[in-house]
């Protein structure tokens, strides 16, 4: 039996389990990840099956958690740590940027850091401040880190295993509002694409929608809705934010001549800004319209009552598609 119907939470959980079964150097660490199984239950049952050593409840201290993971990785382990919510990564930001990202480089490759930092990210769950943020650009901006975002249960299952197998430090972003949302069929006999690749998830000819994490679902719905307006929309799930996999993006935009990037993160200096720049540099003469960006507002993330105003939705994506055709 290789096929099952799973949620993203289940996919990640099964992926972590598979990685731990394959390599006994893989261990999990974080706040409440052990006995509780994590606040989102992503590590549910793993401590019971793998023991307290391999699924370690840590003190409440993010800088300490990441620093400890660095030391473990330097001594031959493959730690996978959970940052409970996106906004809690900031106390660990120092370790991530000043230590994790630099270790291989400054040691001339003598000290690789196979370390995965899992971060549930994005909004839409009615949480309090600092529980709904999208900090990906801050890490993608940092040389020495790799940054990926999964968008669906099947990718969750494979990408977490691939990230753990990578010898580089990986910031692994999980769209928290999708954890328990949709189910998908996982067929473990079908080999996954390589980790640091983008994938076309819907074919189209008129405009290219670029998204990752929680916005992939929104963009797929927008593409479906656009059909009734006679528009054929291609959707690319970027999956990797650092390095960017520009091949599929440029090939698509050269065909469609139009591109819209969508993310929950603030628009200013978000991933959309970099994608826009690169598309413009690489295929200027194919463009029928400027690359447009749909993003969260350039304000702090709002309180729960107002988050639906902040989060880009179907209408905002379709509006950008319309604007693209207006050029």
């Amino acid at each position: 039996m290789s096929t099952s119907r799973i949620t993203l939470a289940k996919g990640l959980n099964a992926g972590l389990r598979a990685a731990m079964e394959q390599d006994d150097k893989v261990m999990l660490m974080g706040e409440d990840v052990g006995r509780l199984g994590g606040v989102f239950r992503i590590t549910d049952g793993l401590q019971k099956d793998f023991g307290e050593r391999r699924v370690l409840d840590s003190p409440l201290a993010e800088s300490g958690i990441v620093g400890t993971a660095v030391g473990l990785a330097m001594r031959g382990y493959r730690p996978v740590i959970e940052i409970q919510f996106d906004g809690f990564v900031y106390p660990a930001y120092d370790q991530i940027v000043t230590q994790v990202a630099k270790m291989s480089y400054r040691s001339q490759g003598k000290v690789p850091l196979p370390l995965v930092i899992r971060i549930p990210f994005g909004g839409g769950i009615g949480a309090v401040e600092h529980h709904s943020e999208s900090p990906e650009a801050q890490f993608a901006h940092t040389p020495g880190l790799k940054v990926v975002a999964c968008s669906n249960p099947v990718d969750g299952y494979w990408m977490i295993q691939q990230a753990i197998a990578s010898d580089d430090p990986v910031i692994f972003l999980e769209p928290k509002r999708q954890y328990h949302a949709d189910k998908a069929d996982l067929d473990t006999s079908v080999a996954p694409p390589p980790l640091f690749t983008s994938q076309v998830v819907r074919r189209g000819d008129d405009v290219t929608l670029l998204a990752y994490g929680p916005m992939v679902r929104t963009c797929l719905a927008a593409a479906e809705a656009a059909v009734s307006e006679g528009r054929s929309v291609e959707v690319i799930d970027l999956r990797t934010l650092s390095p960017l996999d520009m091949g599929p993006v440029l090939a698509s935009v050269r065909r469609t001549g139009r591109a819209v990037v969508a993310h929950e993160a603030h628009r200013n200096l978000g991933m959309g800004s970099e994608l826009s720049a690169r598309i413009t540099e690489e295929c200027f003469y194919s463009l029928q319209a400027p690359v447009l960006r749909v993003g969260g507002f350039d304000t702090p993330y709002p309180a729960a009552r107002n988050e639906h105003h902040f989060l880009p939705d179907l209408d905002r994506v379709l509006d950008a598609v319309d604007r693209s055709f207006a050029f």
Partner: protein
Amino acid sequence: MKLDDLLSMWRIRALEEKIRDLRLEGPIVGSVHLANGQESVAVGACSQLRPQDALYATYRGHGWAVARGVPPREIFAELMGRVTGVNGGRGGSAHFSAPQHGFHGENSIVGAGAPIAVGAALAGKYDGSRRAAMTVFGDGAINQGAVAEAMNFAAALGLGVVFVCENNRYSELTPIDDMVAEPDLSRRASALGIPAVRIDGNDLAQVRTATRLAVEAAAAGRGPSFIEAHTQRIVGHYIGDSEQYRPAGELERDLVVEPIARLTRELLADGVPTESVERCERRAREEMETAAAAALRDPLADPATAKEHLYA
């Protein structure tokens, strides 16, 4: 034995002084922090580490590297940006590492090495090796959150971390006493349940005893220890520091108690011939001259390699 100690300390002093010369003459570029006056802490503590133990130092770490056995020639080359540097010139004065010598790196983020040492000790527990991890930091670093996080982490999990706080009374130009209400820094550790001692860091015997007990505790699985070693730097915080913050007479007093002057007096009082004592300094200086000259002849690192090793 005591003469060997003197030679070990002179090696560090001579290395640091040669580094200062090279910095002022030009081959070494940029910010450099020396540890003159603090040699006994590095020599004493490293004498108790086993090859398999991991040391995490700071930007004031050249002497710790020497005490750990990193070849001076490779340190000079590193600081001069040569291909033959321990890290091919990538790490520079404040960020080089040589894991093959148990020297897991300096760090120019004050306090950042402490949680990393915790991870190394956790690995030592997991793989059954009980390899200890020593992290050394200054008095100023005691006020960093990461150090507090690391100490509690190690205490709660019973990890073999040796926390060495080199209390040289200053963080940069600011006296530690102005920045804490409780001058006994070791109480930070005891408050977290870590056995802690305060010692005269200029006394090699005290440094040795404290670190021996700490490494033994780590190796026996008895958890972390904390050592506050009182010391003094007899040079500026960095090369070029005008040191106007020092009260009158302080440096003169420090020059009397600093470990090389102290051990020299002891040896002479013990009846060791002046000639033997002086030979330590001469030999150390010759070694460093030779090492520096060799490093100076090595080619500079090629900027064309700048993008290499960003990823594994």
